[in-house]
């Protein structure tokens, strides 16, 4: 009787399966650099027992958590430690007004829309030291940080003008969730994806409506807005999947992780029916190649030495292998796999003045190993890791999709896949 009744403990986030082994704390990048943060075990399952007794036991140091999820990857008992911490933060701060700085940092798409209109001015101004000093002192955005440059033309504008018409020419169809970074800062990544997919005979379509995935909104406590945008996105994704029978590809590991894994936990958005159809492009392409459905032919004269950095959310999904194996198919690419370490930026976290030093301390081991790898460039699936590594090592950082697109022999690939353009 008793055994049957107690066959497993099922409470939320597997909270009570924690055996206090403390492995999570040993892999926590924050606990490694500061004693101010009690570590994931304390902040998560231990603290939760007290918060269940009285929410007043919420510990303000929980805001030091990067939400990198490395604790969850390490946990041998399947406890969703970071989810416990994030949900505790949400309960403690929901309804509070976010600061102007946090609101600005979180609204990547609003900032992007405005900045695109005045890109040359914005880029120049944001890079000026007086502006940086004002942002540092007034807004508490650290002066060492440079905002990613804004593009003069949004990805969506480019797509509508130059690519959309061609996207009926091939046999297969996918949708693309480009995200804010591709749209406002770096349309080239989106263009690279279109180039790559088209070469394999896949048409690329935009979603009916796409909004910022909200990862920065969640991190900065703007849950309501994140929920609204999340619902819009999942509605659009659902249409793509069920109406158009199109898988939704992405090129940002954080957007992907957020929409797949954080939406249900943090925003209470049910995505169970479409979760499997949201996937990073590298995973999608690798599977196609692996199943023999497509072939990739690379340039003979391509020669490069790069390092691959596994972004934290990439590691949480366990998808780094897709990007790595795919890049390993490029004959001329000498790829160094770096130790899986956090770069310290964690989205908007490292932009905040109070976190700057900690952020750099967390990333220092990674920066050192990049230096020692003696490479020309670094590849990673996350845009904020890119900014952090570029700023901290001086090396260029690219998304694996761009690396593939760069190395791809387009004509040969089209030929190998029997792609005939007929427009």
């Amino acid at each position: 009787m008793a055994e049957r009744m107690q066959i497993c403990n099922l409470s939320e986030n597997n909270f009570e399966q924690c055996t206090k082994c403390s492995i999570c704390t040993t892999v926590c990048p924050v606990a490694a650099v500061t004693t101010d943060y009690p570590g994931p075990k304390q902040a998560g399952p231990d603290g939760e027992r007290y918060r269940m007794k009285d929410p007043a036991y919420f510990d303000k140091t929980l805001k030091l958590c990067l939400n990198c999820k490395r604790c969850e990857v390490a946990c041998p008992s399947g406890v969703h430690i970071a989810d416990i911490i994030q949900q505790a933060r949400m309960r403690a701060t929901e309804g509070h007004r976010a600061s102007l700085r946090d609101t600005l940092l979180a609204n990547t798409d609003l900032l992007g829309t405005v900045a695109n209109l005045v890109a040359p001015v914005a880029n120049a101004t944001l890079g000026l030291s007086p502006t940086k000093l004002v942002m540092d002192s007034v807004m508490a955005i650290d002066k060492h940080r440079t905002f990613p440059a804004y593009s003069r033309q949004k990805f969506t504008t480019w797509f509508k003008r130059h690519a959309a018409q061609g996207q009926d020419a091939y046999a297969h169809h996918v949708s693309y969730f480009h995200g804010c970074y591709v749209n406002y800062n770096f349309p080239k990544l989106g263009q690279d994806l279109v180039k790559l997919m088209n070469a394999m005979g896949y048409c690329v379509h935009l979603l009916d409506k796409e909004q910022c995935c909200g990862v920065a909104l969640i991190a900065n406590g703007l849950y309501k807005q994140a929920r609204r945008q999340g619902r819009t996105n999942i509605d659009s994704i659902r249409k793509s999947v069920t109406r158009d029978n199109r898988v939704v590809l992405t090129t940002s590991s954080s957007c992907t992780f957020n929409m797949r894994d954080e939406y249900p936990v943090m925003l209470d958005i049910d995505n169970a029916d479409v979760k499997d159809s949201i996937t990073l492009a590298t995973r999608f392409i690798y599977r196609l190649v692996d199943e023999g459905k497509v072939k990739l032919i690379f340039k003979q004269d391509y020669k490069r030495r790069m390092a691959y950095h596994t972004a934290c959310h990439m590691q949480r999904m366990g998808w780094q292998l897709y990007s790595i194996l795919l890049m390993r198919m490029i004959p001329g690419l000498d790829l160094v796999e770096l130790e899986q370490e956090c770069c310290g930026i964690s989205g908007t976290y490292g932009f905040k003045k109070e976190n700057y030093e900690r952020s750099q301390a967390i990333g220092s081991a990674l920066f050192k190993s990049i230096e020692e790898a003696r490479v020309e460039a670094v590849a990673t699936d996350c845009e904020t890791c890119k900014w952090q590594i570029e700023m901290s090592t001086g090396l260029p950082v690219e998304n694996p999709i761009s690396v593939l697109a760069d190395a791809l022999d387009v004509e040969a690939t089209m030929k190998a896949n029997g792609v005939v353009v007929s427009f």
Partner: protein
Amino acid sequence: MVTSDIYKKEYDVIVVGGGATGAGTARDCALRGLSVLLVERNDYSTGATGRNHGLMHSGARYAVTDGESASECISENMILRRIARHCVEETDGLFITLPEDDLQYQQTFIEACQRAGIRADRIDPAEARRIEPAVNPDLIGAVRVPDASIDPFRLTVANLLDARLHGAETLNYHEVEGVMINQGRVEGLKLLNKHNGEHVEVRGRVVVNAAGIWGQRIAQMAGVGISMFPARGALLIFGHRVNNMVINRCRKPANADILVPDDTVCVIGTTSDRIPIETVDDMRVTREEVDVLLKEGVKIAPSLATTRIIRAYAGVRPLVASDDDPSGRSISRGIVCLDHAKRDGLEGFITITGGKMMTYRLMGEIATNAVCAKLGNTAPCVTASQPLPGSEGDGADERDAATRRYSFGQRAAIGRHGSLAARIEKDNDIDNALVCECEGVTVGEIKYAVRQLHVHNLVNLRRRTRVGMGTCQGKLCSCRAASLLGELNHDVKGAQEDLAAFLDERWKGMRPVAWGDTLREAQLTASIYEGLCGLDQAVSLEGKEDMQ
């Protein structure tokens, strides 16, 4: 005062028993200006005081069957909220009617509560589900009463602290071996000092027997007879709270019908079985008891079926035969105070028993009144109005400090020690470092406990601070705490033995519920301490006196 001086002195009163009743009696006597010695054979609160629900009854549970107990409870309930604020959590309680229960009983219950002066508000089942989401959603009726949660360890310690502040002496690990009687008058006690095996004597004009179920033995040593009826109750502790209000079944008291939120955990209980007096020291919980507790517990809160159980424990209620029934079959549920001069012709000997942890203060008052009558002391009892150490002031300062400045461990300490938490060292990183991560016990708190709260070993420390009471049951904290104790007591070998004994004691409580995650937890603990550290090789517990 050094222990050897205590042996030489003559006290006005010697109290036997370091549970809530003994501590409360010692405090009351001390506050009335008597010179007091309290003796306890183990640690404080090792008997029924530390082995119950931690429920501060409103009295509602007894309203229908025992109106007198119910009135006592509600009156003491209101007093404890004032004088023992830091030991009490004002949770309120629900009496729920399930589809299998008779809804008619609810009316009887409410009327009985009203007669006893207990506020009892009938509420809508939907409202009950809203204010206590853990409650069985199938309930068909609910009544809200002023039940609360209370920490009996803290309560006992606070009484002892106050007794000492007013001049009382206390000796734990001193077991009564004999009662010294001269010409029909009790003159003192023969004791065994369990720390060093020495046989000693202490002298007093009056001896108060407040030894709970063990009071029958003490009385026997004095040559007087009391018939006690040990009623054993087993309980289960869950790893965290599922409920934030006390939940009772609205029916005649039965097995496993109360779920109490206690600090970070919740406790379901109890069973009730009459046991022979010879077996009162056997506290093992049986498989059948666990089954009954679970089966009934899930009816109160269904989530208990999937919540990890961290321990099982049992205690013995000291029920007494009514003196007016020579057959000894009629049991008194209320407080029993026996003046053995009147009853048995033995001067200087008083037994205070029966009652509940909940009514410890009233029992102390009654016993002290009897003592004072003998000694001609006319000082009034002030224990109902004078706050216990830790509960001084209105608590606003502590709350303020807790929410603004302090770390998790410091806040947890304020929850445990109230205003006394100010005495805990917290000026450097080491004092603020956590020893027990589950319960947030810092190095500073342990130092405070060792210096101020009579801590000889890890089990003592656990009762004073909650070290080792959390989910991991001592896995992470016990070696740290043992190391600290070893350092503070300058005894490394002793600390090793203490560590082994503590882990053994933790395992005893886990064993009856050792399945699933609790078993994994225990397995990991064993791997660390035995497999990795070789503790079983370094220390043998065989033949060691149990000092728990």
